[in-house]
């Protein structure tokens, strides 16, 4: 092709482009107003080989939904516009819409439960914890909704030396030999917000320690730390009933929390005594909502709802986490749509996470040291429960407490990133190869 004819052709094209532009502009205008008069619009698509890059085209093509209600002639015009547009490559402007927050409807409310009693309530705790009070599932950041109480984190203490993972031994050292010292380290060094004393020595097949001995231990811990104390039994239903009864009678005003009541116990032998004090209880129903309702209904006979926490149990990652997670999600949703039998805050015995083999066995070096895997397992299991709405945690490792506190702070901050564009920095950053 000669130079001359090329320039002629270019000129022709430019003219055609101009025609297209003015046509498109007209159509656009007409579409906006809903009227149009089109004359002489016979466009042969072959002639219109417009070489344009999208940025150069200054035309707005109105989005299709306007057309659906348009008059027939407008529709025709739109078709033309569309034909032109295809040839001229697509020109699309951003259609701005707003993301409207959803409007979940719930009418139920989880009861508020107070752990521990301060001086004004007849106890001697410097700090008490209140959990529950939710009217929405956890972390539903609706504008104007403020979750009533953040979750709280307690540290586990056993009243005798038991087999513990190395990661825990490393963190507490000799304190593990003495529950009082252990509790103190938890609170003073690792920031536990409560202490969970597990009276396993009372187990008839372990030491069969008497309720009186248990009282001594609880007393020493109440003296040593000024945070709420959660009193756990040995898991033997007959013995636990006896121990719990004596312990609450000995400390009727400290706001102790009894961990835990279950359907295997003779509840009538212990609940009336708990009722007379200001203690709260944890009702335990492993991953079973029917039984959770059953035990709560029974316990209501003696103890007011505001003093009951629910534990649906959890397994470490790989060992039943999904059952506990789903049980909690279901229970909380049911509570919030009005099932009063499940309107209780959740306790999580995260120590179970250590039951996962991956949390404690020595594995091939690729899988990393068990001292890291253990706390990580506890942390991640706890986080999964957090999203399902867990309120109080019994934790074994300080690193879990530390991480959970950081996550709590972040999750309870206003959801407004300071530098959102940072979310894309990873795309082009050279990262350490590990």
């Amino acid at each position: 092709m000669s130079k001359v004819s090329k320039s002629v052709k270019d000129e022709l094209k430019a003219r055609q482009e101009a025609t297209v532009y003015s046509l498109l502009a007209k159509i656009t205008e007409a579409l906006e107003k809903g009227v149009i008069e089109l004359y002489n619009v016979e466009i042969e698509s072959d002639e219109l080989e417009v070489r344009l890059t999208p940025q150069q085209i200054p035309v707005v093509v109105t989005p299709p939904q306007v057309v659906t209600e348009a008059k027939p002639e407008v529709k025709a015009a739109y078709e033309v516009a569309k034909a032109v547009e295809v040839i001229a490559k697509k020109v699309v402007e951003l259609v701005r819409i707003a993301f409207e927050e959803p409007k979940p409807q719930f009418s139920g409310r989880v009861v508020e439960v107070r752990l521990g009693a301060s001086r004004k309530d007849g106890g001697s705790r410097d700090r008490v914890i209140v959990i529950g009070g939710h009217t929405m599932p956890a972390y539903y950041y609706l504008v104007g909704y403020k979750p009533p109480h953040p979750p709280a984190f307690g540290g586990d203490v056993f009243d005798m030396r038991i087999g513990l993972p190395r990661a825990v031994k490393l963190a507490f050292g000799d304190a593990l030999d003495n529950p009082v010292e252990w509790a103190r380290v938890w609170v003073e060094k690792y920031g536990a917000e409560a202490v969970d004393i597990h009276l396993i020595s009372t187990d008839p097949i372990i030491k069969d320690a008497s309720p009186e001995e248990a009282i001594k231990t609880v007393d020493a811990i109440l003296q040593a730390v000024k945070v709420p104390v959660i009193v756990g039994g040995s898991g033997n239903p007959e013995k636990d009933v006896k121990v719990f009864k004596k312990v609450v009678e000995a400390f009727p005003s400290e706001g102790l929390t009894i961990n835990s009541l279950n359907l295997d116990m003779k509840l009538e032998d212990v609940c009336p005594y708990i009722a007379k004090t200001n203690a709260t209880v944890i009702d335990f129903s492993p991953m079973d909502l029917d039984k959770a309702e059953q035990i709560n209904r029974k316990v209501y006979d003696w103890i007011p709802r505001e003093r009951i926490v629910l534990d649906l149990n959890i397994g470490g990652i790989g060992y039943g986490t999904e059952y506990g997670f789903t049980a909690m999600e279901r229970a909380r949703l049911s509570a919030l749509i009005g099932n009063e039998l499940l309107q209780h805050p959740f306790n999580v015995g995260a120590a179970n996470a250590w039951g996962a083999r991956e949390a404690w066995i020595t594995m091939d070096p690729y899988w990393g040291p068990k001292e890291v895997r253990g706390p990580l397992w506890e942390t991640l299991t706890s986080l999964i429960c957090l999203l399902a709405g867990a309120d109080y945690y019994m934790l074994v490792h300080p690193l879990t407490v530390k991480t959970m506190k950081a996550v709590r702070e972040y999750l309870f901050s206003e959801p407004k990133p300071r530098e959102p564009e940072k979310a894309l920095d990873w795309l082009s950053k050279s990262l350490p190869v590990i």
Partner: protein
Amino acid sequence: MPWKPPTPIEVYQLLPKTNCGRCGEANCMAFAVRLISLEVKLEDCPPLIEEERYRGSYEKLRGLLSPPIKEVVLRSPKRIVKIGGKYVLFRHELKYHNPTAIAVDVDDSMETEVIIKRVKMIEGFEYEYVGQKLKLDAIAVRSVTNDPKKFAKTVYTVAENSTLPLILCSTNPTVVEAALDVLNPPHHRPLIYAATKDNWREMAEIAKRFDVPLTITAPGDLDMLVSLAKTLSEDMELKELALDPGCLVGVGGLSYTIRAYSWLRYKAAYDLWRYAGYPLVGTPISVWAQMGGDLRDVMWWEAILAVMLMTRYADLIIVHSLDGWVLLPQVMWRFQLYTDPRKPVSVPPGLREIGKPDEMSPVLVTTNYALTYSLVLSDAEKAKVNAWLLVIDTEGLAVDVSVAGRKFTGDKVAETIKSTGLEKRVSHRVLIIPGKAARVSGEVEDMTKWRVLVGPTDSSEIGKWLEKNWTPEKIKELTGL
């Protein structure tokens, strides 16, 4: 209103109604029932797919059964990874489909050997768990150099050395285009990451031209994210999109992230709002750019974000750490989260070894409910015992439930002893059944003619129990051996 399946009648009307049985069901009605509970796929009815005259019905059925969260397909010549395709917000409402895909990154500033080494590690990652092999799913190739040639070369190297689908990570359209020229879809069908408010026109053009899925990202700006989703899906007619609202940590960041992912999925699954109805991409890898300090700390937070995002609806996550301890909880939790809550998880019945058992080692009996089985195994291993584990087929039910439901019976135990050849493995004739199965001890004794001991109620006691009850004297007393 959450998504609701059509009624069986509606579905039945559209099936061939020949009751030919090729789907494996007794008739079309039975198939229809299983279809609406999403236990089978339309493609399981061969006539519907093969015969031209059913084309219309097939399309209609697909419409009726299509999920509110679109399914997007990534492909390599050897692997297909589907993301999204979700129907519900909570797993107990049905179950979650298409487990969160986990992608690990490589980048174009890495030496070729490093790239190949990483690719091999990603490819070779495997962990065996309740009889399943847990693996990684995709490779995210990042452009650090922003050089199209370098990126194309890297993508080529990765594709040559891997069987996994790819994610092309750059906001520079020229860079992404160069890689697509190399991959030559549909042979490969990578996911593009990402269209932004600045490059969306070009990215969309490219995604369209190569017919590959495209991620849209608008960190911190949900309005922009859905505006782009609307524009790209309707005005640019892109069908396969994925959304990333941005993954941020710290004060104001983590709360934003959880809020964004939760609301997007809520709007899609409960309000059936189509502009949110796409798979969600999460980038735990972003902690590497947002946090400083100790590497282990960063890895720790990457694991945290991965697990939280998986729990809060991410359909694909991109991570950087290849360390086993960071990835292990991710693949395990993913497996659990995506099991069908309507069906108990089971392991194959049979005889397993704990430690190094011999002919005088104790025989522990348990159920094939995966959790019971895992716990017993884990506890017995923890106690360092050598024993045989006889796993009874209780149809995936736990001990107490299976005893009550007559799935744990004398017959079943006798049958399993026979089928496993246990008699030849041990010279004694003593079984230890779970404490929770005490009720059936008599019947097990009758049916098997073995001595039955009732073991502990909780498997954590196995070690202690054996120490006390499986001593040379007691064995002698029991067996005379």
